[in-house]
């Protein structure tokens, strides 16, 4: 379970169309979906965005199982957002909207992060003008997710085998129990980061050095098609959102009436 949390956000190589697209195209489309999610204040439109993102991730990314893990990990946060909104507003439907937005924002980012190699992500950022130190920090953080996931599992297993109880007692006791996991994890992470810094120095990396990436990137036909289709859908949803919502509501009402008959 501890491992699933981190593994759910880790990149895994796969042979699927979304993986083959240029990272810049995927990043742009992810941003388009994010902006759309933030701007749309209708549950029906949010539902449409969810459907589009699901189709992208499942059909183009073949990420079914990974997506389930991802959503299981996010479920507590989404529940928390929903409950907090419900407690404040007392309106069930109004509380649903922020939860939908959170889900769509995460899925938008997933179309990029779950399908883009951290090395390519670093090159993308570098091409966008970011300094190499920052792009490397990003890609190394992503690369070390699985290393930390493994370390976390090892620490949990070691503490459990010593008779340490994690999930017993009240809230404060539980929090105290988890310090036995967190402190070694922080120490090991710091040690590993020193080791990575050492390696960077030993491999000739230096700030401000001229850098020629080993991998070159090229925007191709499918990248352009992916961007155009996504922009078209986003524009249509923004312009005709009201009409689409009405049509959807009409269909839903008719369906419910038919069911009632």
């Amino acid at each position: 379970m501890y491992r699933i949390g981190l593994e759910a956000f880790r990149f895994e190589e796969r042979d699927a169309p979304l993986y083959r697209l240029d990272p810049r195209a995927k990043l742009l489309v992810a941003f388009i979906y994010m902006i759309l999610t933030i701007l749309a204040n209708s549950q029906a439109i949010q539902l449409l965005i969810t459907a589009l993102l699901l189709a992208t991730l499942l059909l183009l990314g073949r990420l079914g199982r990974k997506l389930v893990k991802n959503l299981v990990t996010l479920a507590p946060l989404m529940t928390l957002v929903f409950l907090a909104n419900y407690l404040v507003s007392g309106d069930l439907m109004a509380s649903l909207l922020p939860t939908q937005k959170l889900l769509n924002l995460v899925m938008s980012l997933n179309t990029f992060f779950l399908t883009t190699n951290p090395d390519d992500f670093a090159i993308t950022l570098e091409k966008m003008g970011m300094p190499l130190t920052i792009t490397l920090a990003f890609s190394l953080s992503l690369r070390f997710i699985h290393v930390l996931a493994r370390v976390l599992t090892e620490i949990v297993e070691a503490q459990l085998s010593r008779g340490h109880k994690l999930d017993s007692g009240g809230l404060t006791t539980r929090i105290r129990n988890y310090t036995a996991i967190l402190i070694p994890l922080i120490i090991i992470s710091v040690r590993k980061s020193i080791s990575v810094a050492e390696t960077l120095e030993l491999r000739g990396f230096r700030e401000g050095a001229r850098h020629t990436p080993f991998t070159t990137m090229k925007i191709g036909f499918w990248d352009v098609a992916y961007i155009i289709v996504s922009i078209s859908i986003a524009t249509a949803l923004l312009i005709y959102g009201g009409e689409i919502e009405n049509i959807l509501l009409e269909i839903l009402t008719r369906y419910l009436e038919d069911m009632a008959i």
Partner: protein
Amino acid sequence: MQEIVTIENLEFKYLGAGDKALRGIDLSLERGRRYLLVGASGSGKTTLARCITGLIPHFYQGEYSGEVVVDGMKVSETPIQRLAEAVGYLRQNPEEQVLMTKVEREIAFSLEFRGLTTEEMERITRRVMENLGISHLWGRTTDTLSGGELQKVVIASMLVLEPKILILDEPSAYLSPMAVKNLQGLLDTYIPSQSTLLVIDHRLDYWIGFVDTVIYIDRGVVRYMGSPGRLLNLLGSEEHRLNIPLHIRLSHDLKQVVNTRGVNS
């Protein structure tokens, strides 16, 4: 023989440490020879390696005195990045030295800062991978590799720069005896004969037949530097903290018996 590393009166104390990690080290390593640096845990083996690579004094701070010269460069005055062209350093855990996700990018990483074109980088990377017999790993992600494969990838990532001295720090720590044998075979075959090899390991039995010279370091002081066979003298002459292989200990004891009682007894 020409010297590749010269160390004179080297002393180092880590920032905040009570004792000096290295005390009055004087030694030189020659081109094309193989050295084994042995000593108990905390004896200063890794600190000495850090002094050769330039991590000390540039990365780890502390009280540093004496002089280390690597391939004609004064370590204290040369940036690590420049020294990296002469020294390849493989540490205990290969996983912590992997920076990239894809194997070929990992191997080519050092080349990305040398002003080479993409084609040149690819040519060098392919050649080194072919030499080490890991061409089939091209395109694989580094987190799917086995321990042995990962170690080869890390070695390849050092070899692309054609270092003049290769330092392997505790390479047997994560390997089975058979994997150590394989690693030695790999080093025998693919490390250029003019390159110097410095192996740091406390497992004397694994490496004693593989190296030309053994350097024994104890509490920051070099106690012995010479042929592996003459390490035996250490047994009788002083208290040591070394795990001497059984066959060497037996041979030493037999010699002692022969010397004291004569052949007939």
